[in-house]
């Protein structure tokens, strides 16, 4: 029998439609796989009971001839999405035990489309991190191993989602991307990750990190799967003022396999100093594949790229410092106070105990850059640079249909590496942050292996609300790259 945990969403969808297996069988297979891979710590909580219940309901629905876009397909939900009655922590101690009375719009859309939730995937605390080592609930281990067999990070912040998809613990997963949190872990774990255009998916019910950047997206095994899942997640939501009132196209229909005559831009600023040779080579191979497929490859310039990382690390912490003010120990989550404490004492104790070091660091950075006397020098300037970065892309998209670049400057690194140097850790986001600041869709897909045998991803960046082109080009690149490697133990 087919290993039900190794299917693509499209295969599973078709298998369910043909009656090869039921959603309950598919779900049970994943629950077993989750148990078998608990060492990876990909889930903060597993919800097998709810999963079976949802699968049964889905099978019943299908029996009545009613099947949604993701009917019966078991997936992981990043624990940043509020899920009704199911603990939602954002991987923080401060939200431990918090069970929302509401369901996020994205998960509502997914469940309405028939998806089955397997559990809440681990992440960096409040989605702040690139290694999934800042989770209060422990770090996630990448299912891939280097030659020395050391445990590697899955990337972050959607590290649990990426590891779950790579290790067969979910057919797909939701992620969120603020500065690369979908694309970078997708690259590290050898899967596909799509950050949609800002405003494509509702942020309602997603624990906020940086409101002007946060965007939910699919993490899947194939480009087609990303198209299927995005279609089931996206849509205008009146409850999110930044959600765009645009129609959701049939993303899967965009996968024509034909990119002849398309123009693909190669941004020279992404050829950074000290770029590992294997990343340059990966990129060149990708360029060659697109050219062979009939696309025209042209050089473009994005002159403000070098300021993107600095800009991001002002804007995101600034917003976070304000967004995280609500975690004050008063209404939900952890409260730490002693007899006779004042309100301020309680705030300080609850927040000191509830937030991890990286979160505290970013709250402090954010508070600093917004403070009187520094606002203009940091935050205001960052907004201006952000505008320039957006204009760079707008100019480039005047001539090209999509941009191709590496997703990350390296393959997955060992757990513990970069931990003592936050700036070095932040450099992981150097290629993903510009598209985030510009609000553009970005798709990462695995196209090769490092010398260590670890997956490496390339990224396609598209015009606002043109995920279709990104997916179309991605589909062609995926076919050409023919990336079939699997982490040890996952070889079909």
């Amino acid at each position, binding site marked *: 029998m087919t290993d039900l945990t190794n299917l693509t969403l499209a295969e599973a969808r078709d298998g369910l439609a043909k009656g090869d297996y039921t959603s309950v069988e598919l779900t049970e297979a994943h629950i077993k796989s989750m148990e078998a891979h608990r060492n990876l710590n990909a889930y903060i909580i597993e919800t097998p009971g709810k999963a079976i219940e949802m699968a049964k309901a889905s099978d019943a629905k299908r029996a009545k001839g009613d099947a949604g876009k993701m009917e019966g397909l078991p997936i992981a939900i990043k624990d940043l*999405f*509020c899920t009704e009655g199911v603990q*939602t922590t*954002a991987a923080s101690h401060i*939200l431990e035990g*918090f069970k*929302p*009375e*509401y369901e*996020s719009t994205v998960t509502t859309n997914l469940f309405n489309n028939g998806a089955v939730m397997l559990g809440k995937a681990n992440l960096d605390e409040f989605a702040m991190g690139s290694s999934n080592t800042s989770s209060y609930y422990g770090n996630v281990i990448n299912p891939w191993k280097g030659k020395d067999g050391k445990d590697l990070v899955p990337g972050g912040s959607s590290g649990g989602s990426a590891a779950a998809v790579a290790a067969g613990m979910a057919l797909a997963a939701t992620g969120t991307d603020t500065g690369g949190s979908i694309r970078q872990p997708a690259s590290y774990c050898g899967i596909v990750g799509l950050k949609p255009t800002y405003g494509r998916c509702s*942020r*309602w*019910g*997603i*624990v*906020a990190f*940086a*409101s*002007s950047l946060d965007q939910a997206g699919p993490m899947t095994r194939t480009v087609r799967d990303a198209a299927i899942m995005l279609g089931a997640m996206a849509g205008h939501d*009146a*409850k*999110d*003022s*930044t959600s765009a009132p645009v129609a959701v196209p049939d993303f899967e229909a965009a996968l024509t396999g034909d990119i002849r005559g398309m123009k693909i831009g190669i941004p020279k600023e992404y050829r950074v100093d000290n770029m590992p040779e294997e990343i340059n080579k990966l990129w060149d191979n990708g360029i060659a594949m697109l050219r062979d497929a009939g696309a025209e490859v042209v050089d473009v310039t994005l002159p403000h790229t070098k300021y993107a990382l600095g800009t991001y690390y002002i804007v995101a912490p*600034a*917003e976070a*410092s*304000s967004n*995280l*003010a*609500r975690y*004050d120990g*008063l*209404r*939900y989550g952890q409260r730490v106070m002693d007899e006779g404490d004042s*309100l*301020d004492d309680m*705030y300080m104790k609850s927040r000191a105990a509830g937030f991890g070091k990286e979160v505290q660091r970013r709250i402090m950075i954010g*508070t600093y850059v*917004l*403070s*009187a006397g520094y*606002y203009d020098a940091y*935050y205001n300037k960052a907004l201006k640079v952000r505008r320039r970065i957006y204009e760079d892309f707008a100019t480039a998209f005047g001539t090209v249909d999509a941009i191709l670049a590496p997703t990350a400057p390296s393959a997955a690194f060992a757990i513990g590496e970069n931990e003592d140097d936050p700036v070095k850790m932040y450099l992981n986001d150097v290629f993903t942050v510009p598209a985030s600041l510009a609000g553009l869709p970005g798709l990462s897909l695995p196209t090769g292996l490092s010398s260590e045998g670890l997956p490496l991803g390339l990224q396609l960046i598209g015009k606002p609300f043109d995920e279709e082109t990104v997916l179309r080009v991605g589909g062609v690149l995926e076919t050409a790259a023919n990336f079939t490697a699997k982490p040890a133990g996952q070889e079909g």
Partner: protein
Amino acid sequence: MTYIIEGSTGPWEIVVGLEVHCQVVSKSKLFSGASTTFGNDPNTNVSLVDAAMPGMLPVINEECVRQAVKTGLGLKAKINLESVFARKNYFYADLPQGYQISQFDKPIVGEGTIILDMPDGSTKSVGIERLHLEQDAGKSMHDQDPKYSHIDLNRSGVALMEIVSMPDIRTPEEAGAYLTKLRAIVRYLGTCDGNMNEGSMRCDANVSVRRPGAEFGTRCEIKNVNSIRYVMQAIEIEAKRQVEVIEAGGEIVQETRLYDPRLGETRSMRSKEMAHDYRYFPDPDLLPLVFDQAFVSEIEKTLPELPDEKKARFMRENGLSAYDAGVLVADQEKAAYYEVVAKGRDGKLAANWVITNLFGALNKLEVPVTESPVTAENLGKLLDLISDDTISGRIAKDVFEIMIETGNDPEKIVEEKGLKQITDTGAIETAIDEVIAANPDKVQEIRDGKDRMLGWFVGQVMKSTGGKANPGMVNKMLRDKILG
């Protein structure tokens, strides 16, 4: 009118600017669908957004935007077609988000003007610097438990308009007139109910003193004063305090102070060093608030006649004095009452009756004009009875007193009590003849040139007719009989 504090070192002038928070009249809150009903049980008007649950997002309530624009138009102010909501960050137990969504450098309404109607009938114009929309905080209740404070989030997220004046106010009376006028305007517009005792209108006063005409001094902000009278008192007391401090060789430090009406003093609440750094920045959860001129024009069409226009009309069409017109337009119900009384009648006479007699009586009864026992229609009938000589002005006052007590129709009262004026010349003549016959010496005095004595005769005739004789006729007939 100048208001000068005579200090030991010379005269001081006061400079005042007011920040008024007006709760917007709307069914639901500024960024959530929760109800704004006042007086519900604690924490019953609270949505997930108001409680700042994780992942919740604000969505602007268009009705509140309309109300702010309407108020801006009422203040003859510039409406900004694009404005920006910003977060004002600070921690407090009644502020669930840890920030207040407000407007900072791009408010929805810019500069405007308010015309003050001073008690002496003069006017003064005070500039409006801006009006912005923001969320109200919840309410801390410190008297519910010996150890803990309780929080009621019903008010959390209710829309407020903060209306900031220019530092144009120079006397406590002007501050009072400003608040009275502002309250009248928002009430006319229906954008705020203006009830200061319920907290739906709250005032912060920025007060400083200076030598007349000199540069502005350092100001202190007196927070949250909850009546017009207290605002006037607080300004007076704070200005005196500042003069005393300066004249004693001290310096005014910029700070936030509280007014204690019981002790009649202001007290320091927070110094500048302890002031919050609010870290304002544009709220990334909300797009800039953008609307077009057509939206503004639509709202403009719904504007009622405002106090200033109404006052001008009363002066122009009814010949009222500025003072009388100002009193009548001070609130919409009073003006409406007056208009019913004055319709088709002598506007000045109507104003006199409404202001002197009716408002005087209502003040004693402590009831608002909307609950007046005398309806505007009945007061109008009473004026008609005077002008068609059915009763005299003096009898009318008696009838009015009965109307205040019973609420009855004046025609009915006059009929029942037999108060109809005597215009029958025969009856009056008889009464006159009797008085003349009884007082020949006084008649002679008049004939000798003491005209003033005629008044005494009029009084005697009125007395003998129970006040019902037409005084004009009595006067004329007496004159004819004695001098003719």
